[in-house]
């Protein structure tokens, strides 16, 4: 019996890290303390638009002066981690589906969608071989003169 207890305590001392224990209350703060640092040191992937603007000044100025200024570059172009060092090119992200995220008309007056210009992404706005960006510049969106 005593031998078993000693074996268990020795095994525990080897297996369980020293920082595992109560750091606050037993109910909510019983954990391995180094794990907090592990979570905090996860690499940051989305860099934010000022990082993009430090090189792509022209497009940055263009979109920041437009109604699309609220949209982060990386929302369409993907996370900037590793760019430009290891990831040479980020996706352009100009599919109809991307525009449709906000510009699909939905009959929901109580939602924020109601204040955004909306279309039906199907016919007649889905002619073959044409994309939204063929007429609308996502960095400088302006209503078409004949619309």
């Amino acid at each position: 019996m005593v031998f078993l207890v000693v074996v268990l305590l020795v095994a525990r001392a080897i297996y369980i890290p020293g920082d595992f224990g109560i750091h606050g209350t037993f109910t909510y703060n019983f954990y391995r303390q180094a794990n907090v640092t592990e979570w905090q040191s996860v690499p940051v992937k989305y860099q934010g638009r000022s990082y993009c603007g430090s090189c792509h000044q022209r497009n940055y100025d263009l979109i920041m002066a437009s109604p699309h200024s609220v949209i982060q570059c990386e929302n369409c172009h993907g996370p900037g981690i590793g760019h430009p060092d290891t990831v040479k090119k980020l996706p352009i992200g100009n599919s109809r589906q991307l525009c449709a995220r906000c510009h699909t008309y939905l009959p929901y007056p109580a939602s924020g969608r109601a204040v955004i210009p909306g279309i039906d992404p199907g016919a007649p706005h889905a002619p073959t071989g044409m994309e939204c960006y063929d007429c609308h510049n996502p960095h400088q969106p302006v209503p078409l003169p004949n619309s």
Partner: protein
Amino acid sequence: MSDELPEALPKEPTGSISRRDFLKKTGWIAAGVLAPAGALELIFGLKGASSAQAAEAATTAQTVPHWQFLVDANKCVGCGFCVKACKLENDVPYEADASRTWVERHVVTKDGVSHVDSPNSARDGFTTPDIDIGEGKTLQINPEDIAKAFFVPKLCNQCNHPPCVQVCPVGATYKGPDGVVLVDRTWCIGCGYCINACPYGARFFHPVYHTAEKCTFCEHRISKGLLPACVQACPFAARRIGNQNDPTDGVAEVIATQRVEVLKAEYGTNPQCFYIGLDSEVR
């Protein structure tokens, strides 16, 4: 008969106890009672906090942030950029139907029926008026039948009394010093108790790590002074984060002084994710 009596007599005093035995047994019992407390101290490091430790804890309480989340459901348009950013930022497999955060669409028709969907956790936004009713089927709703319709972003509430933490049998999930509930992937055994315990359905199994997975408020970003990926990605400021321990924090001030609502307050979880414009339809 009379011969047997002397033999039986010595057996009678078995219940009696000598002074020496009494002291010995008392000693063992006392040791036995005290041993578990000593073992607890040995195993868990349970010690009464000294006054110096208490003072230290009070100082850290002021300098360590306590994160709170503020969702303005009125502003959400259901674009789903928050979900896309979250999945890519936090290595949740993009094609897996699992996400740390999601956006719900609530469509209440005039007959009082509530239609709720969140296709692919709204990773690609809401690009059709048809409601996703599962198994690849959709439900068409006549726009004239709609009484009200809106979007509600959801994420982990980082409860101050998290049920998910209480049920963890191995100490793998915990409330960190800044109020964020985290999962220790090296410690999680994947039993799934926490996934069942969460009243908000905020937890799931990570398809790659095979451990419990949840929103961390982007702990790796907020601890560096950055915004969570979903907050940064939201074009309409429907998602905001604040620090309750910072007296100059505008978001924390809104939570403290304006009319805000939490989800499932009746569960007593004390959620730290607050909502503006929440409808009673939303649970």
